[in-house]
Every structure is written in C-alpha cells, then in structure tokens.
C-alpha cells in the first residue's frame, strides 16, 4: 500500500503494514455494500422472539473511514451527513431526551416524521416481535465494481476530516436523539452512529435495541419490557425460588459455582460489592445456566453480565456512572428487579450469538484463538516468529481474552465503549470483530513483547498494562481493528479484493 494511504493509521498499524503482504491494499478492500445476512437470534426455548430486517444497501464506508481518521486527527466526521439526512429533524435537538426512561420515550414517540427510506424498509420487515440484530453497522464484503469509487470517496473524506472544522459538540447527540425519536428506529443508521460510541445516557436503551431486546418499533417498547420482565419472574419461580433439596446434584454444583464466583466478580468495582447487586447477579447467572444446559454456567460468564448491570442501572440516573456503588441507596427494589430481568435477557441475547464458546470443549473459543494466530502471522510476522521462538502458545494467553471478551484486560468503562462498537457490528461483533481487536491489541505491544522471553511474556500478558487506558485508546484500538478487518476480513472480502 502506498505511503499516503497509510498515513492516517495509528502508528503501530503503520509499522505493521510494512511487514504485511504488500499485494493487499487497504483501500481496495474497503467494504462497499451492506450484505445483510438474514440470520435470526437463536431461539432458546422461545426466549427470543425473532424477526429480521433487511437493511437497504448504503454506502457508509467513506464515513466510517473518515471517522476512524477523525479519531486520530481529533476532528469529527461530517461525512455522515450524506448518509443520514437530518436537517429537517434537527429541530428535535431542543426536545429534552432521556431515552433511557420509558416515560420520555413515550413522549418522543408522539412526534411524527415522514419515514426515511430505510425506516420504511425496516417497517416492512418488522417481524412479530423484537428483533433486528442482523444488520452489521458496516458491511462484511467488498463489491469489486465500486471499490474504485469508494477509494476516491475515502480519500476525499480523509482530506475533509483534516479540515479542522469541528461540528458543535452536540451534533452527534442530535443524531442519536433523532434516531431514537423515530417511531420505527432505523437500526442500520443506529448501528452506524453507535459504532463510534454512544453517549452514556443513551447507552441503556441503545444496547437493549442492538441486542434485540427492545424492538425497532418504539410503540412496543413498554409492553415488551412488561412482558419480558414478567417472564423472567416466572423463570425465577421455576428455577430459583425452590427448596435446595429439590435441586439435582448437578444443579447444586452449578449453584455452588455461581456462588463461589459472584463475590469475586469485578472486585475492583465497588458496585459489585453490594449485596443486593450480588444477589441479582447470582440469580440471573443461575437461571441462565438452568435454561442453557448445553453450556450451563461457565466461569467468565459472570464477568460478561457486569457491563450490562452497570449500564442498565445508569439508565435510572440519566446515564450517570454508577460504578462507585453510591447510587445504591436510591435504587429501589423495583428498579433492581427490572435491571436484573433486563440484564438476564440481554445476556441471553449476547451469549446466543457466541454459544459454542461455552459448550463442551469450547470449540468457538478455539476457533477464535486460531483465527487470532493466523492474523498475527499475517500482520506482524516478526512478532509471530518471536512468540513462536519462545514456545508460548496463543491459547495460553488469548484464552482469557476470548472467554471474558477482554473484560479482564480493560477497566469497565473502557469495556462499555468497546461494546458500543461490538454491538453495532451486529452478529459478528463479539466473535469476528473481537478477534481483530485482540490482534490489534497484541500488536500494539509488539515492540515490548519482542524483547521478552517466555516467562516475562507470559506474565506480561497475564496483566496487560492498560491502567491508564481510556476511551481514546480504546477508539484507536477499534479503528485499527476496523482497518484490519477490511484488509483481512472474512472469506467474502478476500474474494473481492481487487488488485491493481
């Protein structure tokens, strides 16, 4: 690839590219069109109503690219104007929105807009219920015939983004407000926007939507919540509120394991020291295990519930960070019940996409570790060779990264930012895209790692030095992962690489 094109990339990637296959050009493989894969949320014993939405093809790459660049140059992406005509909707910005509370959602819902084209599409396909988790925020494959055009556009947008003309700070927020105010939420637009981070006060609702827990049709939100929370209560009666001596041995063993793990979940976050929160966590993990016997409870799943709990709790406090646990005095039992039920369903949805990570022998985990190793071989041959020479195996350090989705590597607030993007990626977020993130993460430390022998390496990677990481570092990681995924992404993308 040419010098010029690599200039906008984070430093460590730039270095990496020199050692990568020079036949592959980043720009040529920029994805072009959304190719929605009609897949449905796994239907676990009827736990998830399913529906699908076929999103219209749209060109979002130039935007994505420019916003990646903007993270580095510090300017905001204005190219998204093209994809989301919001001018007539910007009026909404004056409407106070707190999308996290159902009340104000109702209020917003009454404001009618002529639907945008993609909204109509979404409307057409809106299935019985809940879900629209299928459309990736960014396309999976590149169509060769238009990659030239994309190339031009991406160069253009790169130049404009360096044109220091920062939009007002609330610009992004207005976009979120607008999208969330639609009677039928345009999921694909939402993903595009959310890919670059969700403002904390919108996060609870948007995560629920992206996880398919809340339907795109906002008029159904309130009833959906009522129904799902009631269903969870029923599950609780069936599985949890029963005498211990009616549990089988293996059920008792599962309960024991959950109870061993809950007190050592996120010990560095005071919120999870709270007994009421711990009871919620124990219950929902145990009930999830009972309802998913193929995997049952696996250590690490406890970690995965923590961002959900923290985010959903923040929804009751205008997006306020609840991690210090100080809000607990103001959290009523009813709120906590709702948070618990919502967390249960959202965890169920999240895990249904990566189910074979936790079944016997964890095939999904092994597949991801192999993919990671392949990737590192291609993007940083020196590092790969060094790791090999020390005798370290990828499974030895990357297992935890896969099993806990990097929750052990980053502080919880960083994980929230990371998950904004994973959720926006659609089905592959917690699997495919995650592997690219892991690769970027590893390669980020390439120089240091190459100075280390086996012992040092292993211990370094047991405890990666990310204490001073914040959203910015996570975003750099995400943008380089995005570039990697367009370079080396899925089998389809390979086939569509155009070589010049």
């Amino acid at each position, binding site marked *: 690839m040419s010098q010029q094109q690599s200039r906008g990339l984070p430093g460590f990637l730039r270095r990496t590219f020199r050692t990568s296959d020079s036949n592959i050009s980043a720009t040529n493989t920029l994805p072009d069109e959304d190719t929605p894969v009609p897949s449905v949320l796994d239907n676990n014993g009827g736990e998830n109503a399913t529906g699908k939405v076929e999103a219209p093809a749209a060109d979002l790459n130039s935007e994505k690219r420019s916003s990646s660049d903007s993270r580095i140059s510090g300017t905001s992406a204005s190219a998204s104007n093209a994809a989301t005509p919001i001018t007539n909707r910007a009026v909404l910005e004056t409407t106070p929105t707190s999308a996290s509370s159902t009340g104000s959602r109702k209020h917003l819902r009454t404001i009618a807009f002529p639907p945008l084209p993609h909204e109509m599409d979404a409307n057409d396909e809106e299935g019985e219920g809940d879900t629209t988790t299928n459309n990736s925020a960014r396309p999976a494959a590149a169509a060769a015939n238009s990659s030239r055009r994309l190339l031009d556009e991406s160069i253009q947008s790169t130049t404009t983004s360096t044109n220091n003309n920062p939009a007002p700070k609330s610009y992004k927020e207005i976009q979120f407000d607008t999208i969330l105010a639609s009677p039928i939420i345009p999921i694909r637009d939402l993903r595009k926007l959310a890919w670059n981070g969700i403002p904390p006060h919108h996060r609870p609702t948007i995560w629920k939507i992206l996880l398919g827990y809340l339907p795109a049709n906002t008029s159904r939100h309130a009833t959906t919540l009522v129904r799902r929370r009631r269903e969870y209560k029923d599950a609780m009666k069936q599985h949890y509120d029963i005498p211990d001596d009616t549990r089988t041995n293996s059920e008792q063993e599962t309960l024991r394991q959950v109870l061993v793990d809950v007190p*050592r979940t996120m*010990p560095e976050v005071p919120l999870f020291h709270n007994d009421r929160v711990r009871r919620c966590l124990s219950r929902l993990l145990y009930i999830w295990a009972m309802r998913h016997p193929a995997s049952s409870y696996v*250590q690490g799943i406890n970690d995965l519930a923590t961002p959900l709990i923290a985010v959903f709790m923040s929804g009751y406090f205008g997006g306020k960070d609840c991690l210090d646990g100080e809000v607990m005095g103001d959290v009523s039992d009813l709120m906590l019940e709702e948070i618990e039920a919502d967390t249960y369903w959202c965890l169920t949805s999240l895990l249904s996409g990566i189910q074979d990570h936790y079944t016997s022998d*964890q095939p999904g985990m092994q597949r991801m570790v192999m993919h990671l190793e392949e990737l590192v071989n291609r993007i940083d041959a020196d590092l790969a060779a060094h790791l090999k020479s020390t005798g370290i195996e990828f*499974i030895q*350090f990357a*297992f935890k990264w896969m099993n806990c989705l990097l929750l052990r590597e980053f502080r919880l607030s960083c994980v929230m930012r990371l998950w904004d993007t994973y959720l926006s990626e659609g089905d592959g977020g917690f699997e495919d895209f995650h592997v690219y993130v892991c690769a970027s993460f590893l390669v980020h430390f390439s120089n240091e790692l190459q100075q280390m022998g086996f*012992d040092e390496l292993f*211990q370094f990677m047991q405890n990666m030095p990310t204490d001073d990481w914040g959203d910015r570092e996570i975003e750099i990681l995400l943008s380089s992962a995005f570039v990697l995924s367009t370079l080396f992404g899925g089998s389809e993308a390979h086939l569509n690489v155009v070589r010049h």
Partner: protein
Amino acid sequence: MSTRADEEYDYLFKVVLIGDSGVGKSNLLSRFTRNEFNLESKSTIGVEFATKSIQTEGKTIKAQIWDTAGQERYRAITSAYYRGAVGALLVYDISKHSTFENVERWLKELRDHAEANIVVMLVGNKSDLRHLRAVETDEAMAFSEQHNLAFIETSALDASGVDTAFQRILTEIYRLMSRRNMAAEEGGNQPRLTSGQTISLSNEKQPRKNCCQG
C-alpha cells in the same frame, strides 16, 4: 534474550496447582511467589503462572508454578497445562467437605493427563478457618497415606504451611530426579531423565550453562 544473574538456576521444575474452584489455588500461588493474599481475587480464567527460586541441598531450583480454573469445562487448555509438569499440588478447602470428596476426581484427571511419575502433594488449604473445619486432619492424612501422596495443611491467608508445602514438593522432585539420574548413569546410555520427562518446559531458559542462546 537476557538472563539476569539472579535468574540463574540449576533446575527448572514445572508444578501445577489443581483442585476445585475456590479452594485457594491462586492465593497459594501469590502467597508463595509474591507474599500476597487477596480476599477478593478474581476467578482464574485460562492458565497463569508465576515463578520463584528456592535453594535445596545446595542447588538453586526455579519453580514455575501453573495455576488454572477449577472448572471442568476448560478442556481446551488441559493438555498443555499438564504437559511436562513434574509436580502437582492437589488443593482442597478444609472448610468444604465436597472439595475433599472431589480429590479422587482430580487424581483421575492426573492419571489421564499428567506424566506417570509426577509427584503429588495433597494440600488442605484455609487451615485458618478452624471454626468451620469440615475435613479432619486425620481423615485427610489417612487418605493421603492410602494413595501414597504427601500431605500438608496450609493457609494462604495467614501464610502458615505455604512455604513448607512448596519447599517440600520441590525437594522431593529434586531427590527423585537425582536418584533417577544416578540410576541412569549406572545403567549406561540412558537419557538423563527417564520417560521423556523434560524439566525445562518453557523452551526458554535452560540451566545456566547454555542460557544465552536466544
């Protein structure tokens, strides 16, 4: 790769920690290698290790101690975990009888995955929890004699028995090996260690004479 002087050693032994989750394996490891104890340590995911060198019978032995999750699910990493281990600390919690009952299962796991002549020590941890004791010392002692295991009680919390446990298993491994080596020398052309056992498992550091090839 550089090897500092204080990392020089005569032997490198890989020792694994096994036992039910929550019995205190990770804390035994941190107590021994860093003199740290943490009441709210996270569950172990995947494999971890730490090292510490000790002296025994005039030799420096570097112990590479591996720790993993107690849950059965993690088969994906099991074989690499046991590969090359010359010692195992099989830990139970003296305040939870079920963790002692599962010791048999862990012994089977060792038979299935570890080298036949691995040195095993039964460790009854959390001996500080006197008022909650559910496994009597005599019971565990009898069990260990019956299965030909070394036995000790420890507390990662108050540190009692921890150094002794590691010191004893490492010394025993060392003695066993020197005996084997002598036998091997007398027996002629046999390899230095029997049954394909490697002592240095990480491919990284060999005993000091050839430590700097990397």
